[in-house]
Structure formats: structure tokens, C-alpha cells
């Protein structure tokens, strides 16, 4: 186990070290922001060149060929993405979930190669019009760059976690041009704790990202609301209710993505061809409903305009967008879940707004409020970040009335979704991979540490055929209270204690140690986590637990080691989360 290198004392050296970390945060922020800006630009250029953006499609001099390119571009893009993903260890692109897992388990050390390939395939996916998001790849790219910085400077795990959060904050600050949202996202989704020691470097990174975004990206706001009216009082009740419905929609969206992923594994087709198949399907449907192609920025805009869609059309585009995104992500395109969720949520909000206008017979002056509330109600549960979603609305619109309306809808959306489905799609994915973050980081850490790390064979090992006297003599000589019975084939037969051997000798009922086995004593296997081992300790008193794999004895883990590991982990966490400089 590596100890945290974060100094917590006072004095000039820790202060200098801390200032150095802030400076490193700013540098990582700058690099991550430039990469994020380049990524966003690259996607835009690809969309123009590959006839995905409506503007390029409109300007294309041979409209009759568009049907061909609409199917061919996502298919070929999928083919390239599939081939590139073969070079990744698990054959899947890395996502923010991997960054979260690295921080929550204090593993850190995000691999640069996987991060780079994932970013490249995400750019190709987005460029070729797959219905995926761009913010997830940006977050993971920022996290990878941050981790790389910590590794280059040979920093400890705690600092690695902070630099990962710096990269994430800078990426969000740049992509949305929203520095506060970047800072909060890094705390809310990635770190999941709040320490001043982490705050300062993250704030520096977000600030640098923001400055670079205003200089280099000069893009229009993601959504931009001119002066708006103030909603009527009773409409706030509707916004809260929309939050509840939005949570259900968010759940459906997340499970559609996971469900297609499960179905895809049963598909009789090589996995590297899956994205191409998804691309072909997507392109064919896009011939009828082009709104589902790409990130859908135009669709997002139209969804905030009353009357841009008919009521039935809203429902159709919404359903198809969910299906298209589930198809693309489930079948192995690389990309995020946030941008499609924005579109889906806004369409859902628009649908609610139209329904209310039709039923209550009121004017559609407050339509944009419904659109934004729907958007927040779906996105906040998907990324598990209610505060970030609110701040994005606030920083992008500068409109306080809209932000309070969004607050109304997120009030119910996030807790309902968390109860029914999980804190976020990332948490659900990690849970499916065996990392449960629902009880916080302490548990996650213990669950991520295997008892095998503490394995030792420095214990008394006896043959089951050994006599009682021999066993007692050996234990006394070795000054141990327990012995483990292992035969010549390394098979484990159980555990005996000195007390039981002695009482068996007195009773004179048994002659060999094999008859005195403590049947109550549980065993561990090499996959057992520290968390599970801790749970066993509640019922067992003894010296150590044996580690047994398929009947074969591996060694023992002393209980005192388990307790010490637990204290050690808690101490590291405490220092990371409550240290201030």
C-alpha cells in the first residue's frame, strides 16, 4: 500500500508544495482546455466535411447524393471506430466512469494510451454523425491528461486524484464556457468530497479553461435565452412534477443504453463490426428523421421554440433519439451520454409545455421554461449532478428565473432517479462491473482492495493426519494459537485452534487433528474484497482467515492485518478529504 504523500502539517514547505499543486492545476487546466477546444473544433470540421451538419448538407451541390452519404458516413465511421477499439484491452472505449472509478478507489493512474484512443474514436464517432455526446469524451480526456501530469511529476495518489479533477474541471469549463459548473462537476461527480486542498487547484484549472474558451473557441452559447417572462406561480408545481417524470425518462434512457449493450453481446456478429451496423441503421432512419444525427444542436434549439415541432412530432423525435443513442452507445460507438440527454430532455420539456398550453389554454410565453426544466430533469439524473446542471443553466443563460425553475424540477428528478436506478449512469455501469459506489468512497475503497494483497504463508501448517500431541507441540513452539490443515495435494481441510486441540486431548475422543476442525470458521478466496473480509470479522474471533481457491490452500490473512488495512485506508481518505493544505 502506498501512503499518501500529502503533507498536512504547517510551515513553509507544505505551503510551497501546495502552491506548486495549484500551479500544476493551472497548467493541466491549460493543456486540457486546449485539447478540449481542439476536440470541439475537430468535430465541427468533420461534421462539415462529412455532410453531417445541416449547413453542409444544405450547401452540398448534389442533394440527390445525400441519401447515400447519410448512410455511408456513419457506417464507415463505425467501421473505423470498431477497428480502433480492438486495440483497447476490454474492447470498449473509456468513459468518465473509468475516471470516477480511478478516483473513488484511489487507484488513479489513468492509462494514457486507452484515453488517447478513446478520445480519437469519440471524435470519429461524433464527426461521422453517431448520436452520442461530446462532453463525456472531453471529461475523460481531461482526466487522462491530469493523471498523466501527476505521473510525470511522480506525485502520490491523492495528488493524482486532484489533478484528474483539474483536467475534468478544465474540460467542462472550456466546453460549456462555464467555469463554476466545471468546478462543481469535478467535486460532485468525480471527487465526491469537498476539501480546500483540492478546491484551489481545480478552481485554477477551471479558470484557465474559461479564459482559453473565451479566446480560442468563441462559439455561441449552448443555448441562449433572450429576455423571458416570469412563470406563473402554479407553473412551479408543474416544474416539480416534470422533475418526477423526467427522472423516469432518464431511467428509461439509461436502461435503453445498457439493454442494447447486453443485446449486442448476444449478436452473432464480430464485436468490431457492431458500430458499423449501428451506423448503417442510424443513417437509414436519419433519411426520414434527420434530427437524430450527431449531437443534435439544431434539434436542441428548435425544441426551445414553441411551434417548431408538432406535438406528435416531438414524441416521435424524442423516442427515436433515445433509440438512436442507445443503439450507438450500446453497439460500441465511443461518446458521451450528456449531449443526447440534453436533446431528449429539452424535447420532453417542449412536449410538457405544449401539453400544458393545449390543456390549460394559456399562451406559450413560458415555453422555454418547460424546455429548460425538462432538460435539467433528464440530464441531472443521467450524470448524477444536480448542482452542475443548475449551474450550467445559470452560467449559459445568466437568467435567474430560469435557474429557479430548473431548481424546481431537479428537486424531485435527482432523488427519484437515484432511488429507482442509481446515482448516475456511470454508477450503474461501475456497479455492473463490480464497483458499488452507492455507500460512498470508504466502502468503494475497501471493495476495490483484495485480501490477497495481505496474504502470507507465515503460519502453522499441519497435515490432517498429524497427531494431537504433535500439533500442540508445534503450535506451542511456533507461539501460535491456530494451525491450518493442508494435505500433500495442497488441499485445505480446515483450521484448528490450540484451545480445541487441548480440549480434544483431554476428552481423548480424537487422535488426529483432522477430527478437531472448527467448522464455523469461514474461508476467503483470492477475489475476496477487504469489505467482505471486514464483514466476516464481525462474526469470527480468531487469528487469521485462510485463503482458499477451489479447495487449494493459498495462505492466510491475519485479522490484525485486515483491521490495519481498514484503518490505513480510512486515514488516507481522511487526510485527502479533510486536509487543507
Amino acid at each position, binding site marked *: 500500500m502506498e501512503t499518501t504523500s500529502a503533507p498536512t502539517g504547517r510551515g513553509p514547505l507544505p505551503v510551497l508544495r501546495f502552491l506548486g499543486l495549484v500551479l500544476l492545476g493551472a497548467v493541466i487546466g491549460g493543456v486540457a482546455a486546449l485539447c478540449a477546444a481542439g476536440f470541439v473544433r475537430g468535430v465541427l470540421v468533420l461534421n462539415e466535411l462529412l455532410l453531417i451538419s*445541416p*449547413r453542409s448538407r444544405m*450547401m452540398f451541390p448534389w442533394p440527390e447524393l445525400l441519401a447515400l452519404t447519410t448512410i455511408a458516413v456513419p457506417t464507415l465511421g463505425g467501421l473505423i471506430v470498431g477497428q480502433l477499439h480492438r486495440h483497447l484491452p476490454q474492447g470498449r472505449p473509456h468513459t468518465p466512469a473509468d475516471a470516477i472509478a480511478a478516483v473513488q478507489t484511489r487507484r488513479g493512474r489513468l492509462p494514457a494510451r486507452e484515453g488517447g484512443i478513446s478520445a480519437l474514436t469519440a471524435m470519429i464517432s461524433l464527426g461521422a454523425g453517431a448520436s452520442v455526446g461530446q462532453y463525456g469524451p472531453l471529461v475523460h480526456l481531461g482526466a487522462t491528461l491530469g493523471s498523466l501530469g501527476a505521473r510525470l511529476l511522480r506525485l502520490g495518489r491523492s495528488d493524482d486524484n486532484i489533478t484528474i479533477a483539474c483536467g475534468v474541471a478544465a474540460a467542462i469549463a472550456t466546453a460549456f464556457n462555464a467555469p463554476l459548473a466545471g468546478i462543481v462537476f469535478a467535486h460532485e461527480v468525480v471527487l465526491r468530497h469537498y476539501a480546500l486542498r483540492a478546491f484551489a487547484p481545480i478552481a485554477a484549472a477551471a479558470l484557465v479553461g474559461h479564459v482559453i474558451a473565451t479566446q480560442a473557441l468563441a462559439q*455561441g452559447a449552448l443555448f441562449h435565452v*433572450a429576455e423571458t417572462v416570469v412563470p406563473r406561480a402554479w407553473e412551479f408545481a408543474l416544474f416539480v412534477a416534470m422533475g418526477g417524470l423526467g427522472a423516469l425518462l432518464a431511467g428509461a434512457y439509461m436502461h435503453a443504453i445498457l439493454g442494447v449493450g447486453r443485446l449486442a453481446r448476444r449478436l452473432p456478429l464480430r464485436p468490431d463490426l457492431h458500430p458499423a451496423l449501428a451506423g448503417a441503421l442510424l443513417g437509414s432512419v436519419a433519411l426520414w428523421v434527420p434530427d437524430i444525427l450527431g449531437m443534435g444542436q439544431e434539434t436542441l434549439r*428548435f425544441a426551445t421554440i414553441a*411551434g*417548431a415541432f408538432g406535438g406528435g412530432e416531438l414524441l416521435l423525435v424524442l423516442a427515436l433519439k433515445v433509440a438512436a443513442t442507445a443503439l450507438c452507445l450500446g453497439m460500441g460507438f465511443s461518446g458521451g451520454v450528456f449531449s443526447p440527454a440534453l436533446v431528449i430532455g429539452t424535447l420532453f420539456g417542449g412536449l410538457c409545455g405544449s401539453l400544458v398550453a393545449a390543456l390549460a389554454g394559456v399562451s406559450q410565453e413560458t415555453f422555454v421554461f418547460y424546455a429548460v426544466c425538462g432538460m435539467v430533469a433528464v440530464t441531472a439524473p443521467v450524470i448524477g449532478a444536480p448542482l452542475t446542471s443548475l449551474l450550467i443553466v445559470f452560467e449559459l443563460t445568466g437568467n435567474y428565473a430560469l435557474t429557479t425553475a430548473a431548481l424546481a424540477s431537479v428537486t424531485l428528478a435527482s432523488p427519484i432517479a437515484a432511488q429507482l436506478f442509481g446515482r448516475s449512469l456511470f454508477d450503474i455501469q461501475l456497479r455492473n462491473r463490480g464497483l458499488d459506489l452507492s455507500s460512498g468512497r470508504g466502502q468503494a475503497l475497501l471493495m476495490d482492495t483484495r485480501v490477497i494483497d495481505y496474504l502470507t504463508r507465515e503460519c502453522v501448517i499441519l497435515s490432517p493426519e498429524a497427531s494431537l500431541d504433535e500439533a500442540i507441540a508445534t503450535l506451542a513452539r511456533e507461539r501460535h494459537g491456530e494451525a491450518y490443515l493442508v494435505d500433500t495435494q495442497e488441499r485445505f481441510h480446515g483450521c484448528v485452534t490450540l484451545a480445541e486441540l487441548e480440549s480434544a486431548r483431554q476428552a481423548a475422543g480424537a487422535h488426529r487433528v483432522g477430527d478437531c476442525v472448527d467448522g464455523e470458521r469461514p474461508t476467503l478466496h483470492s477475489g475476496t474484497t477487504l469489505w467482505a473480509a471486514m464483514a466476516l470479522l464481525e462474526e469470527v474471533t480468531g487469528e487469521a482467515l485462510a485463503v482458499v481457491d477451489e479447495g487449494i490452500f493459498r495462505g492466510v490473512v491475519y485479522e490484525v492485518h485486515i483491521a490495519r488495512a481498514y484503518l490505513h485506508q480510512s486515514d488516507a481518505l481522511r487526510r485527502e478529504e479533510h486536509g487543507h493544505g
Partner: protein
Amino acid sequence: MARTFRTTPCRLAAALLLLLAGTSGLLAEPLRVLSWGGAYERAQQEALFTPFSEAHGIEVEVQRYAGGLAELRRAVAAGEVPWDVIDMTRSQAMAACDEGLLEPLPTDLAAPAPDGPPAEHDFMPGAIGDCALTHTLFATVVAYRTDAFPGRRPTRIADLFDQRRFPGPRALQRTPAVNLEWALLAHGVPREELYRLLSTPRGLALALARLDALEEIRWWEDGEAPVRLLTEGEVVMASGYNGRFFDAMVNRDLPIEILWDGQVQEHETWVIPRHAGNPDTARAFIRFATSTERLVALAERIPYGPARASAAERVGRHPDTGVDMRLHIPTHPLNAEGAIAKDETWYARTLTRMDDYFAEWLEARQARTGEAPTPTAGGDDQPVAP
């Protein structure tokens, strides 16, 4: 040493001037310019043509047109081009350049600014093209009668479509351009997204629906028509070119005011047609006419925004009327706040389709409302006369 260095360029320049004067006097071939006529040509005459003749001893012959490339195409195909320099909107210049109808311009054609900065830093972005050099920006704006809406005045382009608060007929140009942008802006769409959204059937439908909701539209084609319709009280709001409205407001004292929000800015350029008779004189003229000093002189006579920063900050009062011209040029910061930069590449590629789409809609509208149909435009291009 230093003295020699100082004097040599002067002597060289004097010799060159003498040579130029000698040859031009000898050949006396006039420079043939094609421009737009009207108040615009009068301003150009005072600010550009006469000073050029005086400085270089070359006569300037001016011919008029109303935009369009058809004639240029014919002339280039025949190899007999009767003009040396043409004053052209940038969108048409881009199309003409693609078709190979224009001479490429040298990159160092424009003169540096008086206080030193090179031309490429002084001109606004996109002004220096392969075949065209932007000299001014003109704007299509909405103007309204000041006496039409007692107690209130339109402040946003959305007010053009608000016939409840601002009742009365409108006059609009019979083109998709500008009208579609304004209709979409009235839906609250940000300016940067206009052309992306207009590229979708949904965006087009949304814009046309907003136009369709207007009750009475008089469609105009000739640039002078909106001024006349407003003056005669036939409409209360009209789109038109800012220079013409300025002329009516300031020189003729008519009760008209310009609504600057949503103004659509376009580049006006100088180009040299292929097979031009005097390309060298043409280049000398363009360098002269785009100098800071001449652009200031032009903007002080007609309120079009100079394409150079150094010229924009030097614009002063109209030499005859004393009107402060800065307040009337489209690029003045107060006026430019809600300006739309026309996406000329987009229009260059989509014009035919957009025209057809617009014509189809207009026909349906006219069949429904019984609005007076306007004669269809002749030729293959949009006549756009600033």
C-alpha cells in the same frame, strides 16, 4: 550616408510619377468602372473618381448596373469586357470568382494604414479575398414612419412581425434573403445559429410561418421602392438599404427612422473582370480607392461602413450638411449591436434552391390572400442594389 538613403526613394517616386503622368497623357486610356448609380455613384464620384483622375491624370468613365453576373458572363465568354473595375457585392464576387470570371488580386494590393499597420490587420476579417477587396459594408435594415405608432417605437427586429403592437402594412424585399433571417430572429434564435437552423426544413418552415403571419405585405424589388412606399404612407414599416433611408431622412427630411436591430451587413467589393483592358490601371485605382483617406471621404458622403478600422475611426461630418456621419454608418458600435453577418458562402451555394422554395411559398400565399403578385425578376441572379 543617411542623406542618400532618405533622398533616393523620393527621387525614384518623382521619376515614377513623371513617367506615369507621361504615359497616361500619351495613352489617355480612360478607366471604365461599373457601379450602382444613384446617390451612391454621386458619392463615389466626389470621393473616389474625381480625386483619382486628378492624382493620376486618368479619366474615369462610369457605367451603371443593378447587380447580377449574366452580362459579365457573356462579356467574358466573348472575350470583350467593356469594364476595368466593377463594384460588386461579395456574394456575387465569390460566385464570379468560382466561375473564373474575375482576375485574382495580388495580396499586397491594399495600401497600409496611415499610421503604419499593414492592410491585413487594418481591414475587417474576410475583407481581403482572392478576387475581391471589400471597401465598405452596407446594411439592409428596417425603417418605420415615426408618426405611425403614437407613444411607442419599434426597438427589436421582432417588432417587424408584431402587428398587434405595431399595426399596419409592411414592405419587404421579394427575396428569401434577409426576410428569413429576421423571421427566425423573431423566434428568439441567437444570431450565430441562423444559417445552421435555416439549413433544416424545420427552420425554413418556422421562418416562413412567421412571415406568413404578417397580414399585409407589399413586395419590392427596386431599392428606391421602400422609401417611396414609406413616404407615401402605403406602409408603416419597410426593409431597405440604410443609405437610401439616410438620404430620405437627412437630405429630404422625411418622417422616417431606422431600426438598427437585426441589420444584415453585406460586403461591397472591388473586382477586376477577366480580360479587362487596363488591369494595371484597375489595380492602381483599387489601391487608391481603398486607402484610408478615400474610404473616409466616401463614408462622409454616404453612410456605408468603411472596411478598414483606421478609416472607421476617422469618419467625421458630411461636408455639405454637417451631419455627424458616424451615427449613421452600420458599423458604428451603437448600430452594430444586433447586426447579422450575412453568410455569403451559404447564399452562394443555396441561392437557386432558396429562391425556388421562396417563390413556391409566395405563390401559395398570394393565391390565398389575393395579395398583388409582383412581376418575377428577370435573369438568373438576385438584383441587389445597395
